[in-house]
């Protein structure tokens, strides 16, 4: 049932004892269909919040009401929480707020409302519910965590850090507390401490993509590029189709390009040669083959290609041979220039390409 008063309510009252002021004015004549319907509607509404089933039998003398919680049905609060978890927000929030009036001490309701409203961007209200919950359960780690999240979403980073420190102090093994504290610390510029909490989060759940990504960011912020790249790659591996993975891919490309440019000032001769080789190779191929090879490299590049390690070798299904990461990136760049020049692969090889193009064009003119 909704609360604790059992899972059955079964009572019969005399028709004349029913408080007719509870009914619409035009439905107060016993024996009429309107009266019967109004009585039924009244009890249906009274029991609605408890879930389960209600049967109402109205005859000429009595009203029999039997409500029973469906033993197979979930608790109404939990059912609403499950709907929230599925992203169905508006109605569950409305019903939970109604339930909250009856059960102001129900921490599950306060917590759920706080998190849902926080996700809806109603951060002031979220904070109120979460603080009410904490007044009742001051040692509740998830409540402190939710409060921390609501605060950081308002830009109140220092307050968020304080709330999340409470959460971590209560339960150092809580993934969300550790991850969010790490994230807030990065936001506050405390990268090293942020890294510690994010490492702990990754230890708690090595498959938590956001923690892995956050750790990569903490490392990157401290200039630990190689380690950062490793964790970005791991984040992509965990779910290559997620938005987190997209962000990780972007970060990896940026890291690779920065590293690529840092390796030599001005033009990268090796890249010029790889581009020139790709131009020559593709010029002799039907555009469909160029497209197939280019896309295969692009797919492979989704999880990152090592452009600074000539020892790393890759193979393609659509083109025999072993290739270095930089070689494939050059091949992809040239391929897209030929089949979809408007596409930005996120790795700027324009200068190397122009030189290679000039070299190839010059060779062609000389042939």
């Amino acid at each position, binding site marked *: 049932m909704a*609360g604790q*008063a059992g899972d059955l*309510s*079964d009572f019969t*009252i005399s028709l004349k004892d029913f408080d007719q*002021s*509870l009914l619409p004015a035009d439905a107060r004549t016993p024996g009429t269909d309107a009266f019967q319907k109004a009585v039924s509607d009244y009890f249906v509404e009274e029991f609605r919040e408890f879930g389960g089933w209600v049967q109402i039998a109205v005859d000429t003398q009595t009203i029999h009401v039997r409500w029973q919680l469906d033993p197979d049905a979930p608790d109404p609060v939990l059912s609403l929480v499950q709907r929230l978890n599925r992203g169905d927000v508006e109605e569950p929030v409305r019903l939970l707020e109604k339930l909250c009036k*009856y059960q102001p001490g129900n921490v599950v309701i306060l917590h759920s409302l706080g998190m849902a409203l926080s996700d809806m961007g109603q951060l002031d209200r979220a904070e109120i519910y979460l603080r009410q919950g904490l007044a009742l359960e001051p040692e509740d780690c998830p409540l402190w965590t939710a409060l921390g999240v609501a605060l950081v979403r308002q830009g109140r980073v220092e307050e968020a850090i304080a709330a999340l420190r409470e959460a971590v102090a209560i339960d150092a093994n809580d993934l969300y507390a550790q991850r969010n504290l790490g994230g807030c610390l990065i936001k506050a510029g405390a990268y090293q401490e942020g890294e510690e909490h994010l490492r702990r989060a990754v230890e708690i759940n090595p498959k938590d993509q956001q923690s892995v990504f956050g750790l990569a960011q903490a490392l990157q912020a401290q200039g630990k590029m190689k380690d950062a790249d490793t964790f970005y790659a791991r984040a992509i591996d965990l779910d290559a189709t997620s938005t987190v993975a997209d962000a990780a891919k972007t970060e990896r490309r940026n890291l690779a390009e920065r590293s690529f440019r840092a390796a030599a000032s001005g033009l990268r001769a090796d890249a010029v040669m790889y581009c020139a080789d790709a131009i020559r190779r593709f010029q002799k191929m039907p555009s469909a083959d160029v497209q197939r090879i280019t896309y295969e490299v692009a797919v492979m590049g989704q999880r990152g290609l090592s452009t600074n390690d000539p020892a790393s070798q890759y193979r393609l299904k659509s083109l025999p041979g072993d290739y270095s990461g930089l070689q494939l990136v050059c091949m992809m760049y040239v391929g897209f220039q030929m089949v979809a020049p408007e596409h930005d692969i996120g790795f700027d090889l324009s200068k190397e390409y122009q030189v290679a193009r000039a070299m190839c064009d010059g060779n062609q003119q000389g042939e």
Partner: protein
Amino acid sequence: MIQIGFTHGTLHTAVLAAMVSPLAARRVTLPPRMELTSTTNEVLQLVEKTTGLPVIVQADTSMRILAAIKIAQGSAPAHLLTYNPKVAANLNYAVCFQCGFALRIFQAPEADRYAVGSSYQGKKEAERLVNEHLRNDKGLNRDARLHIATQMYDGIIRQLRSMPIGLRVDEWLRTTYPDLAEEQKALTVQQLQANTSSLRPDVRRFTPDKVRNASVAMSAATAAYWSRTWSDPLPLVPYKSTGDLDRGLALLKRWDDLPGDPAADKQLIDAWGVDLGLAGWYEFLPGI
């Protein structure tokens, strides 16, 4: 005044509990005896220390109610606590609840100990109301109406005696012995369900408005107490639909406003009695 067989009933409970009781070994238990928890034994010992008499705990399959305690009077050597085996898994709470009644009587100063008895005025008033209410019911002769009036009168006085004090006992058990909470909840839910029988049309048919309203108001007050305790509106639904909830809430407010000390139990019963229009329907008998 009836003299009672104990000597230190006015001592504070906490002091008594701290004393080593020579009576603990005197408790009589008769087979078949279901397993009692350490909490229940603690409560039984408290009764023994407070009253100076042992408690006999005994099953009784013939009982129509779940449990009862008969306080030792005169030369009786022990209190008799009987329970219906139907209480089954909730035995510990049922025993502790009855003990709570006994404790409250003996924890009150001697001058405030009481028994609620019937009054001539109350019985006659009940007879008159029943006769008026059923005067058009040709199927009931004078004897039948008298029988109904007696049953109804005994019932409403029993309810007045037990419901407000029962809530005090429940409050004490709930806050002092949380390990009883599950059993307390289970039996209370049953009791709340049973209380709604006072709304039934067949009961209503034989019950004058004054008695019906008093009975339902006390049931509504009990429902309101548990609704508040559990933060659950479900127990209120029946009384809300009949317009009786406000009377129940008024009684509960009276219950809240009066001191929770056992010495004030008599005052509490009297306050409810006045609120329900039952003043003069009962008498307080001195002592136990």
